[in-house]
């Protein structure tokens, strides 16, 4: 099987390419990237006027399987991913059962092998049942295929435990992703603390609950001489803390999600539960700081934090409604709209945050369009105008805050492992 993509604008930060090129794919790999490839191919896609970029690597996705297949499955989640241009994703381990043992990781691997339409990377938990008490056997989990560990959804309160975990993860070459939240400061909160929580009559989630925990976790990583990745950064103070640590050469990387630079807390004032997530939407100065952090390199990665929930758990009283929103199908579009079309980032800087950077952090060979690389890519039409409708959502859940939003630019093809895996 061979596939030739002709005449597109190839943007590949890994190889510092931004220009009109042809890409030849043979099998599941890229066999040539050059101007005017003459070689015949079984299938040819004319990409003139289109952008060809690496498939996205989304390092923060809740696929919900095993356990909550009513919210999402590996099949539905990876189909949604491909539609959104995501060809590789890191599945969060807070499933039921959680991915905290050899048996459970094997169970998950079997399901992935059977149903996954895209590349699903496995994250295991740091502690058993992400309860913050007993560390998992990281060396064995790594051997079984985990690439990262995280207790996403909660933070490990016990400093010694986290210190130990960071050391062990380093020994096993596992990426540690930390959900930074001091629940002693945030417990019972639903929205950003301040005018928003007060005017809505809800308990607030303070910025302190996030950035103070980031500060602590970074200090522990420094002490352990181990790398650390900070998940879903939402506020200005967090960006500042990470920036200072990076200046001191601490091995810290950070991610944010599209909603933290595209939506402010004002969106939640009408009690729309699709605007409820943790950490919560913050203020306009926070949005600005997140964008600036993306620009100056403080924030390395954009990840969706795709968190599907059924209508029964979402479309209810605000304080009872689950935290989280889906994001796989909008991560690219919202990010382009907010970051590229506004002129904040150029295409190369931008694509790197969605592909090469997360791939590097996870230690996987993705996010490149070089010769010999995995043939995962997106063919994107920058001119197409459309709006995101609820009926087209492929995820099993519909909890998106972006329903009804208009976008310029659309994915025409997502190519995964050398084959057209999604076509608009």
């Amino acid at each position: 099987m061979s596939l030739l993509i002709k005449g597109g604008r190839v943007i590949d930060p890994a190889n510092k390419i931004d220009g009109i090129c042809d890409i030849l794919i043979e099998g599941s790999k890229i066999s040539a990237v050059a101007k005017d490839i003459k070689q015949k191919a079984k299938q040819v896609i004319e990409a003139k006027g289109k952008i060809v970029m690496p498939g996205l690597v989304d390092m923060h996705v809740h696929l919900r399987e095993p356990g909550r297949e009513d919210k999402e499955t590996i099949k539905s989640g990876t189909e949604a991913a491909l539609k959104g241009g995501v060809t590789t994703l890191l599945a969060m381990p807070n499933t039921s059962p959680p991915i905290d043992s050899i048996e459970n990781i094997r169970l998950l691997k079997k399901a992935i092998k059977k149903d996954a339409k895209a590349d699903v990377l496995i994250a295991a938990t740091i502690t058993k049942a992400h309860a913050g008490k007993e560390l998992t056997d990281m060396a064995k989990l790594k051997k079984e295929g985990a690439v990262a560990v995280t207790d996403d959804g909660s933070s490990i309160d016990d400093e010694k435990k986290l210190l130990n975990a960071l050391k062990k993860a380093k020994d096993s070459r596992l990426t540690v992703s930390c959900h930074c939240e001091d629940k002693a400061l945030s417990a019972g909160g639903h929205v950003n603390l301040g005018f928003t929580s007060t005017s809505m009559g809800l308990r607030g989630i303070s910025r302190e609950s996030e950035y103070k925990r980031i500060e602590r976790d970074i200090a522990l990583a420094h002490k352990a001489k181990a790398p650390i990745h900070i998940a879903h950064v939402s506020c200005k103070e967090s960006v500042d803390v990470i920036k200072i640590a990076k200046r001191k050469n601490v091995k810290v990387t950070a991610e944010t999600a599209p909603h933290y630079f595209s939506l402010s807390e004002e969106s939640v004032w009408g009690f729309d539960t699709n605007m409820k997530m943790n950490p919560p939407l913050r203020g306009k100065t926070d949005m600005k700081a997140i964008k600036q952090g993306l620009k100056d390199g403080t924030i390395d990665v954009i990840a969706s934090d795709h968190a599907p929930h059924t209508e029964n758990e979402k479309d209810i009283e605000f304080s009872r409604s689950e935290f989280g929103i889906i994001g796989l199908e909008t991560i690219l579009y919202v990010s382009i709209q907010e970051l590229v079309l506004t002129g904040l980032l150029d295409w190369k800087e931008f694509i790197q945050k969605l592909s090469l950077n997360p791939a590097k952090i996870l230690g996987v060979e993705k996010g490149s369009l070089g010769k010999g690389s995995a043939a995962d890519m997106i063919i994107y039409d920058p001119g197409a105008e459309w709006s995101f409708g609820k009926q087209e959502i492929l995820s099993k859940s519909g909890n998106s805050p972006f329903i009804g939003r208009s976008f310029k630019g659309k994915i025409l093809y997502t190519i995964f492992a050398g084959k057209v895996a999604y076509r608009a």
Partner: protein
Amino acid sequence: MIKWNKKDLTGLRDLSKEEIELILNTASSFKEVSTRGVKKVPALRGKTVVNLFYEPSTRTRVSFEVAAKRLSADVINVSTETSSVKKGETLIDTGSNIQALRADIIVVRHNSSGAAIILARHLGICVINGGDGWHEHPTQALLDMFTLKEKLGRIKGLNVVIVGDIAHSRVARSNIWGLTKLGARVTVCAPKMLIPPGIEEMGARVEYDIDKALKEADAVNVLRMQFERDEGAAFPERFEYFRKFAITKERLAKTKKDIVVMHPGPINRGIEISSEVADGDNSVILEQVTNGIAIRMAVLFLVSQGRQSK
């Protein structure tokens, strides 16, 4: 005058000054009905009002019931004790069922902030917020403003102090939105732990010393202190609270002579207010209760009109 075009009343935050004035003026004309020998007008004849109360309330529920009946509506009271809510039915399902019974107006009281907004969004019939969590209690604030206007002739330019548990008070929030829209200056006063962050952005001034706050005050709205509240949060000691914040005769002696003393009820005598003040010349507490009927008649009438205009 402007025309009312909303099918719901979920809060005062989203109302314009003109809409609030329209409610107050409509209430003025309805107030007379309660003084007649036959206390009834046919304005809502053939309409059904359902009081859907998820929280215990006598005062607000009875007030809405009396108001609806004086407009000739049929009234049904649903409380969580007697309904399928106890069996796990969701708020929206309960609302949809009431709508399917061809009710016209739901008055909802709920312990979750935003409940009335969520219900209003899902239903085609009218929804009136009878108090939701710590969020809003619009009819209470409207009757407070109505009473103030009756007593002092205006709202604009008045200095109004709200004292008590501001953090957990929907009455305080609705009063701040309503009073500031109509041009009053609002000062909230409480121990620090009961002043929520960002309250200034709602338009209120914060003062921790009640005597200072009362100095220029034309009116004081005294909130009920719920010492039985079990939130695990810091709460002042009740006698210390009485000493520092309660509205007493001694305190009022240092204020404007004709200061208006309000309270949304039920009052805790000897906790946030002394008996002498509650029963004294400055108190309008029982007038508030009477005015509550006129306000609720106005709101029931207007939302019903608002739905028809759609």
